[in-house]
C-alpha cells in the first residue's frame, strides 16, 4: 500500500479549503481530488490503493466510477472437439475499459434510476461493450457475460460497488483499490453528485498508472526497437553461456 499523504490530514485540508471558499466558488456543487495522480508500478508491485476525497455543497449522494485505459479484448469460447477442448468461437470487444470499478454512498439502485445509470455507464450491467462484428442476441449475451465474468475473476472489474463515506454532511472520501495486475495507462475517475434521481454535478479527474524503473525501460525498448531487442537478448544469452563455461575449462 502506498499513499502520498495521510488521508485524514488531506481531508481536513479539503474541509478547511471548502470552508474558506468565497461565496462565488461555492456555487460549484462538487469538488473532488485524489491523494495521488500517479501510481508507479515497480519491481515487486503487489497492488495499491488511492484515496479520493472531496466535498459537496450538502445533500445528495456521490457515485465514483473508475475506468482504465481502453483496449481491444478478444473473448474465446472453447468446445469439445474429439476429446480435446479447443477454442472454436471468438468475439472481439473494441475499446473497452481495461479496469472498471464503482463506489457510492448508498447502493446505486437506490440513488439513480436505470436511465441515469445507462447514460453514465454506472455499474457493470450498464457498461457499454461494442463488438467488432454484429453478434446474434444469444451470442452477444453469452460473450458479454463471459467477458465480465473473466474480468471480474482477474480483479480488473469490481462487481460490487465500494463505499463512499460521508464525514458529516459535506465531506466525503472513497478508497479505490488496484490489484497487482492493473493495466498501465491513463485512468479516468468520474465523480457524480446525484440528487432526486438526477445527476446535478460531475467531475472527471485523470489518474496515471505507469511502470517505472528498469522493467519499464526493458518493456519500452522491446516495443520500440524489436530487432535490436532481439539481438541484445541473443548476445546477452550467448555471453552468459560463454562466461558460465569459463570456470569449468579444466574440468
Amino acid at each position, binding site marked *: 500500500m502506498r499513499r502520498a499523504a495521510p488521508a485524514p490530514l488531506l481531508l481536513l485540508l479539503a474541509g478547511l479549503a471548502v470552508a474558506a471558499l468565497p461565496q462565488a466558488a461555492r456555487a460549484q456543487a462538487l469538488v473532488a481530488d485524489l491523494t495521488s495522480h500517479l501510481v508507479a*508500478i*515497480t*519491481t*515487486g*508491485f*503487489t497492488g495499491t490503493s488511492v484515496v479520493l476525497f472531496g466535498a459537496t455543497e450538502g445533500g445528495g449522494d456521490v457515485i465514483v466510477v473508475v475506468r482504465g485505459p481502453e*483496449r*481491444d*479484448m*478478444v*473473448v*474465446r*469460447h*472453447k*468446445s*469439445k472437439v474429439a*476429446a*480435446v*477442448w*479447443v*477454442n472454436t468461437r*471468438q468475439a*472481439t470487444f473494441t475499446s473497452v475499459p481495461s479496469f472498471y470499478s464503482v463506489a457510492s454512498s448508498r447502493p446505486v439502485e437506490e440513488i439513480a434510476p436505470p436511465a441515469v445509470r445507462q447514460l453514465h455507464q454506472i455499474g457493470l450491467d450498464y457498461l457499454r461493450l461494442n463488438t467488432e462484428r454484429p453478434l446474434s442476441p444469444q451470442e452477444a449475451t*453469452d*460473450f458479454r457475460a*463471459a*467477458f465480465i*465474468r*473473466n*474480468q471480474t*475473476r*482477474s480483479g480488473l472489474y469490481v462487481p460490487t460497488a465500494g463505499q463512499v463515506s460521508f464525514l458529516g454532511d459535506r465531506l466525503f472520501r472513497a478508497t479505490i483499490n488496484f490489484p*497487482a*495486475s492493473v493495466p498501465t495507462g491513463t485512468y479516468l475517475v468520474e465523480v457524480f453528485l446525484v440528487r432526486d434521481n438526477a445527476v446535478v454535478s460531475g467531475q472527471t479527474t485523470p489518474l496515471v498508472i505507469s511502470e517505472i524503473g528498469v*522493467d*519499464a525501460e*526493458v*518493456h519500452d525498448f*522491446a*516495443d520500440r526497437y*524489436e*530487432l535490436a*531487442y*532481439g*539481438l*541484445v*537478448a*541473443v548476445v*546477452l*544469452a*550467448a*555471453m*552468459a*553461456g*560463454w562466461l*558460465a*563455461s569459463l570456470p*569449468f*575449462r579444466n*574440468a
Partner: protein
Amino acid sequence: MDIYLPIAALSVDVFVLLGLGGAVGFLSGVFGVGGGFLLTPFLIFIGIPPAVAVASSANQLVGASVSGVIAHWRRGNVDFLMGFVLLVGGFLGSAFGVWLFALLRRIGQVELVVTISYVVLLGVLGSLMLIESTRALLRRHRPGAGRRKLHRHMWIHGLPLKMRFRRSKLYISAIVPVGLGFLVGILSAVMGVGGGFVMVPAMIYMLGMPTAVVPGTSLLQIIFVAANVTVLQAVSNGTVDAVLALMLLVGGVLGAQFGTRFGTKLRGEQLRALLALMVLGVAVKLARDLGVRPEDLYSVALVGT
C-alpha cells in the same frame, strides 16, 4: 523474493526460476539432452503465457548451447561443415515456424498446437527411450552382442548433391541434413525447443554420424537456430522475455555442471529409463489437461496476444 518479468508482465519468485533452470540444467547435464522440451512445459505450468514461454526458452537455449559447444569444441568433437549445412535448413525452418506461430496466434490456437505438439513428441520420444533402455538393461545379462556396422545404407543415401563430411567420415547428399535442419527449425520456433532430442537420434540413425561428434555438432547448429528464432519472435510476436531467459540461464548453467558430475556416477541404461519415465509423465499430464473441461469455457485476452 519476487521479480517482475517485463514482457510476460507478471511477478514470479526468483527462486522458482533459478530452481526451475537449475533442475532442467541438472537433467540436461545428467542425461545429455538440451532440456528445452521440459523447460517450456514447466514454464507454462507455473503460469507464464505459452507464447512468452516458447520464445524465452529459445532465448535461454542460445546461452545453454554456447556453453555446451565450447565444452565439446575443446575435445575436438564438432563437425563445422555438417553444422553449417544443417544450419541452412534450420534458418529456413525457423523462419517458416515463426510465421506459422504468428498465424496460430491470430486465430487463437497457439496454446492448443503447442500442447498437442508436446504431447505427441514427448509421448513418442518417452516410449522409444523406455523401450530402448529396457532392452539395454536386459541385454547386459547377455554379453557379446554383435558389433554394429559403421552405418547402414538406406534410400536416403541414393539422393543427389552428395557432399563429403571429413570429421563425420561421411559422403552423403546435402538434401538430408538440410531437410533435417528445416524440420528441427520449425520445432524450435513453434515449441521453443532446440530439437536436440530429435536431432541427436536422427544424426546417429539417419545420417550415420559417429556418436562422438553428434552432441557438439547438434548444439552448434542449435545456437544459430535458437538465435534466429529469438530475433524473429522478438520482431514478429514481441514475446521474448530476456529477464526470464537470463534467470533460467543462471540456474541452468550451474545445474548442468552438477548434473554432468552426478551423471557419470550412474549407469546409462538406468538413467535413460528414468528420463523416459519423466518425459512420459509430462506428456500424460499435458494430454490429461487437454481433455479436462476448463472451469470457464470462455477466456479473455488482449487482441494480438
